[in-house]
């Protein structure tokens, strides 16, 4: 078996390590980036006083949290190209589904991070005559970010693993590499072990980097 693994890697390492890891990292980075932006917007919507906006954002979050991610990727894959007037790549369509999913989960993390800031901070800022948005921007959000960062890092790691679901549509990430190489070599177990090691190392490296970032932020307190 070990022999087979070495053989597969020497022949197909580019498929796993360049294409596979590359697409996995690209997809998770894009997801976290757009998910964060979307998460902030949904979070603001849910905390807003406008009832329609609040209801709309709450409903989206409710639906996304109540349905499987694989189903959301299917919907994204088939629906996004139909909704947009221009040509969309499969990768882009799947990314949209991932970003919406991640945005909804992150909006929850943002909301609890903001609500964890002591109420007195907002009152003190408002008592000085600052507007709500000035108080938010200068007093509340800088403190909330510290509460949110661990959740954001966690989400990044979760997403990296969840991108494997995108292999359903052969968009090129690590799990797609597995499907391709297995199809050529018929060595299922060996390919699975390779993919498992890749995911494990990937998430370990990511959590190491995120842990370092968090520690640096804490010391700047």
């Amino acid at each position, binding site marked *: 078996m070990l022999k087979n693994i070495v053989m597969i890697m020497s022949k197909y390492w580019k498929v796993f390590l360049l294409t596979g890891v590359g697409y996995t990292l690209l997809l998770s980075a894009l997801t976290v980036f757009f998910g964060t932006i979307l998460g902030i917007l949904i979070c603001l919507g849910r905390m807003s006083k406008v009832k329609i906006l609040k209801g709309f954002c709450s409903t989206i979050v409710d639906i996304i949290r109540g349905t499987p991610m694989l189903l959301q990727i299917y919907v994204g894959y088939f629906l996004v190209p139909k909704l947009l007037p221009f040509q969309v790549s499969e990768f882009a369509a799947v990314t949209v589904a991932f970003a919406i999913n991640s945005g909804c989960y992150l909006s929850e993390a943002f909301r609890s991070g903001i609500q964890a800031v002591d109420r007195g*901070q907002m009152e*003190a800022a*408002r008592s*000085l*005559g600052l507007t709500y948005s000035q108080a938010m921007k200068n*007093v509340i959000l800088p*403190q909330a970010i510290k509460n949110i960062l661990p959740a954001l890092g966690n989400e990044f790691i979760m997403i990296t693993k969840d991108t494997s679901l995108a292999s359903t549509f052969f968009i090129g990430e690590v799990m797609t590499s597995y499907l391709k190489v297995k199809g050529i070599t018929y060595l299922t177990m060996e390919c699975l072990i390779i993919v498992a090691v890749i995911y494990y190392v990937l998430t370990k490296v990511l959590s190491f980097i995120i842990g370092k970032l968090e520690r640096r932020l804490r010391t700047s307190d």
Partner: protein
Amino acid sequence: MIKTENLHKSFQIEGREPLHVLKGVTEHIEKGEVVSIIGPSGGGKSTFLRCLNMLETPEEGHIWFEGVDITAADVDINIHRQKMGMVFQHFNVFPNMTVQQNITLAPVLTKKKTQAEADEMACELLNRVGLLEKKDEHPSRLSGGQKQRLAIVRALAMEPNVMLFDEPTSALDPEMVGEVLDVIKGLVKTGMTSVIVTHEMGFAREVSNRVLFMDGGIIAEEGSPDEVFYHPQNPRTKEFLSKVLY
């Protein structure tokens, strides 16, 4: 300076009867006056004070600040709050900023001062309360008394016309109460109009021109410190004062 008329406020708690905290408070605080509010917990003291700058919105009644009805729907409350300083029981200093930034934030954001002017004033104010050498520290490095002194000068940096104190010494260790009260005393001597909710009876008697005793959501008794503390008329005032040591 501040006039209230028939203020009512209740808090809605889910699944329970609404809590009626203020039951019609009518009061007039004149310019230059120092008014202390005393009374048992739950009597509405803090709620009344927090209504004065609209941190709590009364359901009924009106508040006039310098002649403007600030309970009106079309009033820009931020402009009026800039002229009312407030000091909280739990200090509420901003932990994400240095001591100096805590003071300069509001004057700069509200465009009252440039950053340079605000910095200069911050040093002056910090010097006044003996915190100048702490100006580049974060509040987490300050003691409770120092935090509260910072909170007081942060409010003063907006050059308010009235100061509202919400139990400024209740969260302090006993040995730090004195330093905060001294700052408030110094401030009151400069003629600053002040409303002080406090449990420090000796302090209230010493600094105020007028004392309000609040109980059950109304002002049950008011008068000069001498009248309220030594010749209380209302049986509830008598009972309250007999229970507190001062």
